[in-house]
């Protein structure tokens, strides 16, 4: 089974702090994703990466950055945390089919519930 591990289930930080959320997958997946989940809004894509050192903006990248130095690890960075970034953050990964290079369904971690005070 695919294992996507997020470093913290719960995290409390203060306004203005630089916050790092870490995600590691153990299946050598090419693609990795960061979402935030808010009640009534579902999941919204922040950033994704389809290869080491590559990144693409999702729907809501403002206030966030990402880092992918190694294939298995994808970090989400809140440069200067604000209260409106209090949310659940979900990491996901997926692979590409070697036959037709189509991207396969995403596998998710358990989420990090982040509170910014």
């Amino acid at each position: 089974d695919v294992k996507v591990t997020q470093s913290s289930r719960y995290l409390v930080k203060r306004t203005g702090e630089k916050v790092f959320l870490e995600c590691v997958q153990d299946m050598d997946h090419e693609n990795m994703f960061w979402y935030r989940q808010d009640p009534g809004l579902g999941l919204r894509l922040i950033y994704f990466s389809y290869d080491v050192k590559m990144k693409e903006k999702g729907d809501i990248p403002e206030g966030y950055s990402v880092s992918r130095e190694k294939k298995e690890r994808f970090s989400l960075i809140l440069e200067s945390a604000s209260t409106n970034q209090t949310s659940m953050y979900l990491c996901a990964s997926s692979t590409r089919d070697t036959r037709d290079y189509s991207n396969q369904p995403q596998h998710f971690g358990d989420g990090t519930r982040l509170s910014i005070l």
Partner: protein
Amino acid sequence: AQTVTQSQPEMSVQEAETVTLSCTYDTSESDYYLFWYKQPPSRQMILVIRQEAYKQQNATENRFSVNFQKAAKSFSLKISDSQLGDAAMYFCAHTYNNNDMRFGAGTRLTVKP
């Protein structure tokens, strides 16, 4: 832009009964994928079922099946013989490449014993 609408914020079903969760989507693509994900209280998103738009046959996974109406852009999930472990948030999602995925707001399903 792709959008996904789940019009039922909450649903409930009696154990062993059948329930249908609704989902509609909007897309200009002709080929795409649709998913239902389940998120139990443990929070991990679990893939329930997947449908490829070019396949006319509705996908089925054990007690879970979909009613895919491409012309109507509708993708409902039917859960048969509901079990207590089916209680969760259910999210409908749409993508044309499995990267740029759009999720609905979710439907919270309660299963009554």
